[in-house]
């Protein structure tokens, strides 16, 4: 069982009345709401939390990519991942991921992920979401009806760029390159483990099964809603005759731990409600442009999370609704452990992306919740799936003899303070 500590990096200062006075948190959000000087402190606060999670023993620390979005200030997750790779040496660096359909050309993703894998000593867990319509179509201008095709071509190009030893020509529809020669190559070859964040498209299931990629169901609707969709996924796994390793699936869950259930509400409710009421206020016209979703997915009725119907729901949720509906797993350690165990088994997931910081949650609360989880919940859940001990397909394989950057920072400091620097004899 793998636990990834994941932070969306939301803007915590969306004003009261945001929903009424602004049409969207995403795409055309008022840029005057962003304060770059405030962001100086905020980025470091969030990165400090990710490093804290590494110290607390989480298997992975996670970042993701969103553009022009008030609930995520990481249009480039690779920049954050690079900082984390340089300051940690234990946790997997989970970039979940790069929206490859909007990188032109996508060899940029192959190169940056290879750099991250080298710098981290082979700790990269790579993610390739198709990309939300808000990011891919409206912020980055990709044509909706061609997005999936562009994604498929980008995927092929990146995988080949990592795997092939000789330069090759690539005559694609969206990318024509004479000398594809990815330099550097990742430590993990032919490729790092790959996670595909999906929001309900059934084509994504088959894509994951074709390549043995982990299907990450990322929605904010919580595990009760997630169960229905993942049951569909596991049916497809069986139909395709694939093994049922829990490593095939993962899920994002908002988790709030306190000393007891009442304290959890007292500490966390307002911040979770900030997230649902303000951060998910997306103009419905941006959520589902024609051509983005395939005909088969529309017919299946498994529609995306930020459509108008869901948004109506998010407006009026109370803490009680959030907890009872499974949107949030919250309470004292025993409550959380019990619900986590049930969720993990019901959804049959091998990796949990835990969202401990949400909305405008202050730093001390985030660390409090994280530490309680790490010390009082996580240990008892680690070995839920014995079969995953020997299933190598779903996690990174770092080299043992890797640079431990947190020590080089100290040694750099020590060297600077040393009385003299001695030039080696052969140079004198």
């Amino acid at each position, binding site marked *: 069982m793998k636990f990834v500590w994941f932070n969306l990096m939301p803007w915590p200062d969306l004003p009261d009345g945001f929903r009424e006075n602004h049409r969207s948190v995403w*795409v055309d959000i008022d840029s005057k709401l962003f304060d770059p000087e405030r962001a100086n402190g905020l980025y470091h606060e969030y990165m400090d939390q990710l490093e804290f999670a590494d110290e607390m023993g989480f298997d992975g620390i996670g970042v993701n990519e969103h553009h022009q979005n008030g609930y995520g200030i990481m249009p480039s997750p690779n920049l954050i991942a690079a900082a984390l790779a340089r300051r940690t040496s234990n946790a997997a660096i989970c970039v979940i991921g790069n929206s490859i359909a909007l990188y032109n050309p996508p060899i940029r993703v192959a190169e940056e992920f290879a750099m991250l894998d080298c710098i981290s000593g082979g700790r990269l867990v790579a993610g390739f979401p198709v990309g939300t319509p808000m990011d891919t*179509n*409206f912020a980055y*201008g990709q*044509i*909706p*009806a*061609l997005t999936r095709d562009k994604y498929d071509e980008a995927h092929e190009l990146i995988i080949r760029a990592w795997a092939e030893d000789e330069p090759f020509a690539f005559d694609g*529809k969206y990318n024509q390159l004479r000398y594809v020669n990815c330099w550097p190559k990742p430590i993990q070859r032919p490729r790092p483990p790959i996670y595909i964040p999906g929001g309900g498209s059934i084509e994504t299931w088959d894509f994951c099964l074709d390549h043995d990629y982990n299907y990450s169901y990322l929605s904010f609707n919580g595990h009760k809603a997630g169960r229905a969709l993942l049951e569909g996924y596991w049916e497809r796994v069986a139909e395709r005759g694939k093994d049922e390793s829990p490593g095939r699936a993962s899920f994002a869950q908002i988790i709030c731990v306190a000393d007891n259930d009442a304290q959890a509400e007292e500490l966390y409710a307002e911040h979770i409600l900030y997230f649902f009421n303000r951060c998910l206020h997306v*103009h*419905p*016209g*941006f959520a589902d*442009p*024609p*051509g*983005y*979703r395939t*005909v088969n997915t*529309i*017919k299946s*009725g498994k529609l995306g999370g930020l459509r108008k119907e869901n948004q109506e729901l998010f407006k009026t949720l109370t803490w009680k609704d959030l907890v009872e509906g499974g949107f949030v797993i919250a309470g004292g350690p025993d409550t959380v452990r019990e619900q986590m165990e049930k969720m993990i088994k019901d959804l049959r997931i091998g990796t949990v992306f835990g969202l401990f910081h949400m909305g405008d949650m202050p730093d001390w609360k985030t660390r409090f919740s994280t530490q309680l989880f790490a010390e009082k919940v996580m240990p008892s859940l680690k070995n839920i799936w014995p079969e995953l001990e020997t299933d190598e397909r779903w996690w990174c394989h770092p080299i043992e003899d890797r640079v431990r950057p947190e020590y080089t920072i100290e040694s750099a400091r020590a060297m600077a303070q040393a009385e003299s620097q001695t030039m080696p004899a052969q140079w004198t």
Partner: protein
Amino acid sequence: MALAVQRLATRRGIECDLLCAGDGPDLVFFHGAGGVSPNDPLLQTLAQTFRVHAPTWPGFGEDQTETAIEDMLDFTLHGWDLIDALKLARPPLIVGHSMGAMIAAEMASVARHDLQQLVLLTPAGMWIDAEPTPDLFAMLPFEMAQTLFHDPVQGEKLMTGGLDFNDNDALTAFMVSNARRLGTAGKILFPIPNRRLSKRIHRIGVPTLVVGGASDGLVPPSYIELWGESIANCSVVMIAEAGHMVHVEQPQVVADAIVSFAT
């Protein structure tokens, strides 16, 4: 009287429905992103003067052919393939609406001798930085009706065709056909409905009529003026009490303008 529905197949093997009616000089009509129906009031009126041929673009009928068309050149050459398949005796009058007019203008630029005259009804395909037009793809249905129609209340009824949104099967079918049509249209209209026709428009060498709707929120009068200035041998008609769907809101006035221009 409703147009008859026939079948057409291009040399590339792409099949589609073809609406036909009337007798007289050949007129080929290229519809816009809203599609075309056998009850189209403009086409029924034009059938009194012309032999009207109205093929359907890929993505706009039952034939699952839209993956064959990816970009502006694909649309342009498919338009000529359709006309070739009609086996007309003489180069036709081409009439296009909106997206269909964008394609017709490209066709007339590329193969300037293969048509007699050109009529562009509220054409897409230009962009004026100082006056950006709204993004159809980010609009909700009621916003769309306001942008496209002089009478938005009537317009919205027309767009949904009396659909009961509580009927899940009907709603799914509507969403599927909407996704296919606008998904296909997006290949040349998204994110900005401009594929650099201005580089080629000087090649249009036939008499051209550009028709605008005075209340058009998608292709406003300033755009119609730009079209008129960009094409040699071009006349412009602005139709009152009509929006973007000018041929649906004022079919008789539009028909009269076309007949008077072409005959």
